[in-house]
């Protein structure tokens, strides 16, 4: 690894490695934080363009924080305080399929409610919760993206879950 650290990200091969490693994470982070309307795909691309333009000034070890900071700034420049919109996947994700369990009143309303609760979470809670539970990122990784401690990440996930539970309690069949 130390050898890799000294490598120059201006080099296309090195840059490709960085891209393949971080593009997905950066994209997902932006999506969960700001929602789909900021076009996380374009912002990701813009951030990487900035990184390559500045490749001489950014060490490989700093590439990740550079990207996340730049992307964040790009979004903030773009639009502030817009309502976050997440897209709901209608079909059950393929990764796990099951019948609607007997303890839930799963209806259109449940999906809508779930989505609106997610959208109304603070961005800190939402990002931490979704990165952990959907993207299966470790707390350590999330802490790195957000520049906070793991304890803070844990707390954000827990408080997000508590709100979800409280808001959706009504759909539970006791």
């Amino acid at each position, binding site marked *: 690894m130390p050898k890799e650290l000294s490598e120059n990200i201006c080099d296309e091969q090195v840059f490709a490695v960085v891209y393949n490693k971080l593009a997905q994470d950066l994209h997902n982070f932006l999506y969960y934080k700001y929602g789909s309307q900021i076009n996380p795909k374009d912002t990701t691309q813009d951030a990487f363009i900035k990184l390559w333009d500045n490749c001489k000034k950014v060490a490989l070890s700093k590439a990740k924080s550079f990207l996340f900071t730049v992307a964040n700034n790009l979004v903030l420049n773009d639009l502030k305080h817009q309502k976050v919109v997440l897209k709901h996947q209608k079909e059950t994700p393929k990764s796990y399929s099951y019948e609607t369990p007997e303890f839930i009143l799963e209806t259109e309303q449940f999906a809508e409610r*779930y989505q609106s609760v997610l959208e109304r979470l603070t961005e800190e809670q939402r990002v931490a919760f979704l990165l952990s539970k959907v993207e299966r990122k470790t707390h350590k990784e999330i802490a790195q993206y957000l520049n906070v401690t793991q304890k803070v990440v844990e707390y954000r996930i*827990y408080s997000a879950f508590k709100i979800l539970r409280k808001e959706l309690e009504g759909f539970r069949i006791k």
Partner: protein
Amino acid sequence: MNPMHKDELIKKWLNNELSEEEQKAFDALEDSGFNSYLVNYAEHFKASHHSAPDDFKSFKSQYDKFNKQKQPLNKLKPLLRIAAVVIVTLGLYFTFINSSKIVHQTMASEKTTISLPDASTVQLNALSRLAYDKDSWDAKRQVTLDGEAYFKVAKGSIFDVKTSAGVVTVVGTEFNVKQRTNFFEVQCFEGIVKVVSDTIVRQLTAGHTYRILNHQFSESITSALLPEWTKNKSSFSSVPLQLVIAELERQYNVKVELNQINTSTLFSGSFTHDNLEDALKAISIPTQLQYQIETDQSVILYED
């Protein structure tokens, strides 16, 4: 199960830190299914269902396309540099070399008459230089003078004569400007002339002379209607001898050697431009000096 313990279990479960035993306890919770369902349901909002970043290949092509807009400029850079040099050179050429500046210069013992773009005329005395800009003449009548000249300025806008010793401003009139080492004299023959030199500003009317000799300002009156030199005669009133001799040198293109002579003696009188011998007599007799013409270009003045 007490609620405290339940909260702890849920925290650990969220952190994926449940031990086997705790996992059992968690599963035994009456709402464990609901809890799991809530967390798993988040999968419906997975980012990759809706959008995903480009792969590197398409990113690369985007990047290249983005950068192409800058590229042509880089290729042009050397050309732009050459173009800049050419433009600057042309600029300098037109400003200094091919400028519309017109210069008239006289040698020693030479006089000339110049017509300016308007009806004004200038007579230029020996060893003098007059310059003006032909193109901007209509906007600004201005000449630069080094030496002595007699101006007949046609009526019109303001007419400036700039010298190293001061500026003479007129509207339309006749006047003589003489600027030599430590000597600046303006004689007005007609109309009104405004002279500015250092801090001294004067309006001269016809017949008045403005003179700065060795930084000393003086004013006098002249009855002449034209400067004497235009009639091939140099005339002086109370001028140090050295300036008279300098004028003689200019008019005859000779070198005058002075042999122990007090050159600050004031001289009043005149000498002709036609005959060196007569001119020398005109200077030497009133000052009680002797002269000797060595060659065509060398004269010695000495005391008895």
